[in-house]
């Protein structure tokens, strides 16, 4: 066999292999990947808080994509500024630039966390979900007990009727009420 044919064969093999494995992400979909994901969850590097997300949006963090996985009607009623709506059903087949930072949110956080698993399993890096969902966004950014410059930036106002309980108990009570996804 000529060296030319050998090179062509190796190239064809590597290209066909690439089409077969699909993603260039290491360990996408494998057992090792699932262990790594479990580690990320354990180390709490899988989520951001509403205040962190607000700061990222304000800083116009390069490549930031805020994704709303709630139903269309809820997205239409209100969504976090700059957010795009991608339903969970199409999330895993949506392609994301490897350089982007994806932040998923739902109403309470459960659906977004499930979306996080879908995306990470599909090999997308730099995915986070908003802990406490849009409810936390409302409580901590839009209508916090005390207004901050972030609240003003997003056009929110401080709660006037909030009775600040000691040790952040107001927030704890608010979070305990949540059962939604």
């Amino acid at each position, binding site marked *: 066999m000529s060296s030319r044919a050998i090179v*062509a064969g190796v*190239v*064809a093999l*590597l*290209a*066909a*292999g*690439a*089409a*077969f*494995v*699909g*993603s*260039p*992400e*290491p*360990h996408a979909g494998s057992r090792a990947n699932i262990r790594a994901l479990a580690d990320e969850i354990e180390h709490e590097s899988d989520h951001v808080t509403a205040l962190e997300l607000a700061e990222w949006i304000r800083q116009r963090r*390069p*490549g930031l994509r805020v994704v709303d996985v709630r139903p269309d009607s809820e997205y239409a009623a209100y969504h976090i500024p700059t957010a795009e709506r991608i339903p969970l059903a199409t999330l895993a087949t949506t*392609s*994301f*630039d*490897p*350089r982007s930072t994806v932040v998923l949110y739902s109403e309470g956080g459960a659906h977004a966390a499930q979306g996080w698993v879908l995306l990470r399993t599909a090999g997308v*890096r*730099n995915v986070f979900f908003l802990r406490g969902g849009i409810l936390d966004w409302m409580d901590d950014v839009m209508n916090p007990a005390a207004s901050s410059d972030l609240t003003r930036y997003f056009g929110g106002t401080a709660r006037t009727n909030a009775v600040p309980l000691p040790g952040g108990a107001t927030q704890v009570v608010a979070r305990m009420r949540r059962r939604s996804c």
Partner: protein
Amino acid sequence: MIAPFTDSSVVVAAIVGIGFGFALERAGLGNAPKLAGQFTLTDFTVFKVMFTAIVIAMLGAFWASRLGLLDLARVYVPETFLAPQLVGGAVFGVGFALAGLCPGTSCVSAATGRGDGLAVVLGFLAGVGGTASMLPLLQSFYLSTPRGTLLLPDVLGVPYGVVVLAVVAIAGAGFAIAERIEMHAARRKA
């Protein structure tokens, strides 16, 4: 975002640059008439060298990332600005066809002592300097029609691996067609 020029990155750049220049010269791309043959469709060396580089780099990047050797997130992809890049591409193409050399090959040509290569190097440095000095005037055009970072898998909505296979298939077909045209051209000459 451009990688900071740390000491090691300068060393790596020098090694990669020397390797690139060596490969260009070995392929005969320091020779302007050979490059001009690409535009008259008599010599497809430029096409073949470039597509070989694309295929090797693409397969290398894909598998190096897959095997955990390369973090693709740290590979810089320039953003797309449609109109200025179309105009820039046209200007570049005219210059390439007129000079028979592009910036990379002109450096190779100059380094091997060819006078036309040196002239093109001086010409493109003057062009770079002139454009830079006019940048305030050109800035609004430079930043017009931004499209962000475009990648084929995102634009086409297909997995990376499928794009890799498609590009290799296109390169293979291109090679076959190029060699056929070259054979015809050689026969006509003979």
